[in-house]
């Protein structure tokens, strides 16, 4: 058995190890967890966007059957600190207090004001109705521009302003001088509607206290068990070593579970107060108010170019909606985007400013792509406008400006050094698969015939920064954590292997991919590897999963740890085979002496030798286990070209995606099946922003799209069949050559779809449609131009 080790796991399209439990219902979602004496927590939330709380009386709730305790914000204030913001992007950023439960003022619909714990979830929900709260309404703050006016009502009156921060990045030649010498300039305003991330598993928390030792186990549907543990210690004052965080099966995140939420702190605080285990599970509509939103941005963007299409400069002014409070990385999201507006293009000047604005809405934070989809959207939309202005084919305009494959490594105007890439190859492949010329011919034909159903073609090229990132760079960005990742490998006496990772998956298939990586380096069968994650006791160190960092940083750490195991095993093999280390070859899990292949020891045999330790070299520790903490040397830069063809019915406004082709370059691929799946899911979310989804508020600040019945998450018939292909330029900054794939589809697809719709309607004089491009918006755009 040990002699037939599998080779070549990396690159193999393995079905996932994870699936066995998930397809049989043997799951471990946080809401599945039950323990004796468990109490259910329910939270009363503000029905208003903005108000002073003048009275909270929880006592009537205590009369209700099954209720064990009830608390107002004031009751819980002692011993509960402010929720953290770990990314204060500027020195003078306004950092408001963010209590996990409101004490004297509510600042968005859904802000918690009181809670009950009861013996079952129905009783808890019922008892909320008995709590009495008096509010004194305050004016809501909803418009990003009006919020910055001197006379605007304030979200945080003690701060004297709704301006959270101003973050500039100006590089290269001065933009004004570039604008003067440019032959063409194009300026546009793009709006990114708020999105609700909608991981299918609602958030949930279970806390089990152990009074005697003061220990707490916190189960949470989180992407970040390690960061959460640190932050819970800070917020609640419970010593860090007394908190164990477990992220069991987590049903999707997309950034919305990259968060330190008030409910996690509240469940801990209540469990501490009453000494009983506590569970909270959000309902979907509660989650729409309480789980952070994504996007929410107004972009003013201007490009300056020559008549031949050469880009000279780019200016971007952003207003970005923080919502009512700063969550874990709220201010940093647009800053990630700041580096990506120049995208794959060369230019002489870049002038970027972001202004963060407080509003009385649910806080925003990371949502799939986090800053980079917004940036890519703006540059790819305005490139199409510039192409139109110059009478150039949009693909040709991109070709004239992109970084040539022979120019890598290339330092972009925003200061990032792209290690590798080949935009030409990805684009050529995409154009061929799409049959670009034929579709253009059909489009011209339909336009000539005045067909009521128009064809539109949208292109979007992109690069993104994944694999967050060298810790010293994060320091320069004022991000309050490192970018490293941890992996350990335990060789068990029987030759089986445990990989302990600091990444925390929620659908990405880390168990399978990490097994493939470890199996290859160690030369053991894929099936013999188990992956341990998502528990701060079992996997004590880590920086968790977000921003397509897991494979690039965490997978590379697994690789390095496995190499260390082999290096240690080599010493023991040399001793047992009475050979020098240099004379040993290691292949397929077997050490053999060069020239005498019969003298051999498998790595599993070496693992057993350390278990007995009967015959180890003098002074050697009896272990070949190894750990590696990897601080990456650079980000990674996936890229690709996406092409979308839409048919737009100009009489109904209905858009149908006719074909969608993407060619992504994510570097080396560990598991092609998983990569394809990630691309599909990303496309679905990006297309959803273009066509369907929007968190809508009314003038009072109520969330109108407050349930799944009002917020349109696309279902199977809403989405097309995708054609996904790849090119491969390995990253040179990690040993696996990988680049990250989780966000690519989302980043590239939104502009591809909107470009296609605008392209279809250009003959009507249309040059923009607000997202989501609903039939009504499309229809109105066509009509207003027709009538004009």
């Amino acid at each position: 058995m040990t002699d037939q080790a599998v080779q070549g796991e990396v690159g193999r399209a393995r079905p996932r190890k994870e699936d066995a439990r998930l397809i049989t219902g043997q799951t471990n979602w946080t809401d599945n967890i039950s323990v004796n004496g468990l109490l259910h927590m329910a939270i009363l939330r503000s029905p208003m966007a903005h108000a002073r709380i003048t009275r909270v009386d929880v006592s009537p709730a205590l009369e209700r059957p099954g209720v064990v305790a009830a608390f107002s914000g004031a009751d819980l204030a002692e011993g509960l600190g402010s929720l953290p913001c770990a990314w204060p992007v500027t020195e003078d950023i306004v950092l408001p207090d963010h209590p996990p439960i409101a004490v004297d003022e509510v600042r968005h619909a859904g802000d918690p004001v009181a809670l009950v714990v009861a013996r079952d979830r129905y009783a808890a929900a019922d008892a909320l109705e008995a709590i009495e709260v008096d509010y004194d309404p305050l004016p809501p703050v909803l418009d990003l521009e009006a919020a910055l006016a001197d006379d605007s009502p304030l979200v945080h009156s003690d701060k004297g302003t709704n301006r959270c921060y101003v973050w500039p990045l100006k590089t290269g030649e001065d933009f004004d001088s570039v604008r003067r010498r440019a032959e063409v300039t194009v300026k546009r305003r793009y709006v990114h509607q708020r999105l609700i991330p909608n991981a299918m598993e609602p958030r949930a928390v279970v806390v089990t206290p152990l009074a005697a030792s003061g220990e707490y186990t916190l189960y949470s549907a989180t992407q970040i068990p390690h960061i959460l543990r640190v932050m819970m210690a800070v917020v609640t004052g419970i010593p860090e070593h007394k908190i164990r965080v477990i992220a069991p099966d987590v049903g999707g995140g997309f950034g919305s579970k990259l968060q330190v939420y008030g409910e996690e702190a509240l469940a801990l605080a209540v469990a501490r107060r009453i000494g009983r285990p506590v569970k909270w599970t959000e309902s979907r509509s509660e989650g729409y108010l309480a789980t952070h939103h994504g996007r929410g941005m107004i972009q003013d963007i201007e490009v300056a170019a020559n008549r031949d299409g050469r880009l000279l400069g780019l200016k971007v002014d952003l207003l970005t909606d923080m919502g009512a409070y700063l969550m874990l990385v709220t201010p940093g999201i647009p800053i990630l985007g700041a580096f990506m507006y120049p995208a794959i293009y060369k230019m002489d000047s870049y002038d970027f400013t972001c202004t963060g604005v407080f509003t009385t809405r649910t806080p925003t934070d990371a949502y799939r792509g986090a800053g980079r989809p917004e940036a890519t959207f703006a540059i790819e939309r305005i490139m199409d406008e510039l192409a139109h202005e110059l009478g150039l084919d949009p693909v040709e305009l991109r070709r004239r400006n992109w970084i040539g494959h022979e120019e890598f490594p290339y330092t972009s105007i925003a200061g990032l050094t792209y290690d590798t890439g080949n935009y030409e190859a990805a684009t050529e492949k995409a154009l061929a698969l799409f049959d670009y010329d034929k579709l253009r011919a059909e489009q011209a034909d339909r336009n000539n015939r005045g067909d009521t159903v128009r064809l539109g073609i949208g292109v979007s090229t992109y690069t993104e920064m994944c694999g967050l990132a060298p810790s010293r760079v994060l320091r320069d960005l004022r991000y309050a954590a490192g970018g490293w990742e941890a992996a350990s490998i335990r060789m068990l006496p029987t030759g089986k292997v445990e990989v302990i990772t600091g990444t925390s998956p929620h659908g990405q298939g880390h168990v399978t991919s990490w097994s493939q990586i470890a199996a290859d380096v160690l030369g053991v069968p894929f099936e013999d590897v188990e992956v341990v994650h998502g528990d701060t006791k079992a996997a004590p160190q880590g920086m968790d999963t977000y921003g397509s960092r897991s494979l690039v940083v965490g997978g590379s750490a697994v690789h390095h740890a496995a190499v260390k195991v082999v290096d240690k095993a080599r010493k023991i093999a040399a001793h047992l085979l009475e050979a020098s280390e240099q004379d040993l070859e290691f292949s397929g899990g077997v050490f053999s002496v060069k020239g005498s292949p019969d003298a051999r020891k498998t790595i599993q045999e070496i693992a057993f030798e350390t278990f007995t330790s009967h015959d180890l070299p003098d002074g050697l520790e009896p272990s070949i286990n190894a750990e590696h903490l990897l601080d990456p040397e650079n980000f990674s830069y996936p890229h690709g070209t996406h092409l979308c063809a839409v048919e737009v019915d100009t009489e109904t406004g209905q858009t149908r995606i006719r074909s969608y082709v993407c060619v992504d370059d994510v570097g080396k691929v560990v598991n092609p099946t998983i990569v394809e799946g990630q691309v599909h899911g990303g496309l679905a979310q990006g297309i959803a922003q273009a066509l369907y989804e929007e968190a809508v508020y009314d003038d009072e600040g109520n969330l109108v799209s407050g349930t799944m019945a009002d917020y349109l998450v696309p279902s199977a018939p809403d989405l097309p069949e995708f054609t996904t292909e790849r090119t491969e330029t390995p990253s040179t900054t990690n040993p696996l050559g990988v680049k990250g794939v989780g966000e690519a589809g989302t980043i590239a697809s939104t502009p591809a779809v909107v470009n296609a719709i605008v392209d279809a309607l250009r003959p009507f004089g249309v040059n923009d449609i607000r997202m989501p491009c609903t039939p009504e918006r499309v229809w109105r755009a066509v009509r207003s131009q027709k009538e004009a």
Partner: protein
Amino acid sequence: MTHISVKVDGTTYEDDVEPRLLLVHYLRDRLGLTGTPIGCDTSNCGACTIELDGVSVKSCSVLAVQADGSEVTTVEGLARDGELTALQRAFHEKHALQCGYCTPGMLMAARDLLREHPHPTADEIRHALEGNLCRCTGYQNIVRAVQAVSEEEVPA
């Protein structure tokens, strides 16, 4: 409290339940059959889909008392003696799940489709699954999985 008798995945349960108790909570909280998850409170997501007397229904839109005298199949009742159904195998082979939260509901809804309509087209599959949301897969691999089973001509 109302007395009910329900056969779930082959076992009959006799229980007294509150009339307002939802079937999904009965399965999860009372019977400990947590394979069926909850994704919404508006009967939109389909995560909680089960089979009630052979027809797929969203168990968050049925009261436990309405299931009195009925037979329920959940995702936990699909594999028999460790033998996966063709549909479960296809979901695995075609990578039709990522986080897996929607998967029990998808499996139950797809079973219903294949029983009624053993050889659906891709479009028919998409329409049949309209009430089941997935946030991870973009649906394409789910469609492929269902198609694979329909080509195999074995019971789902």
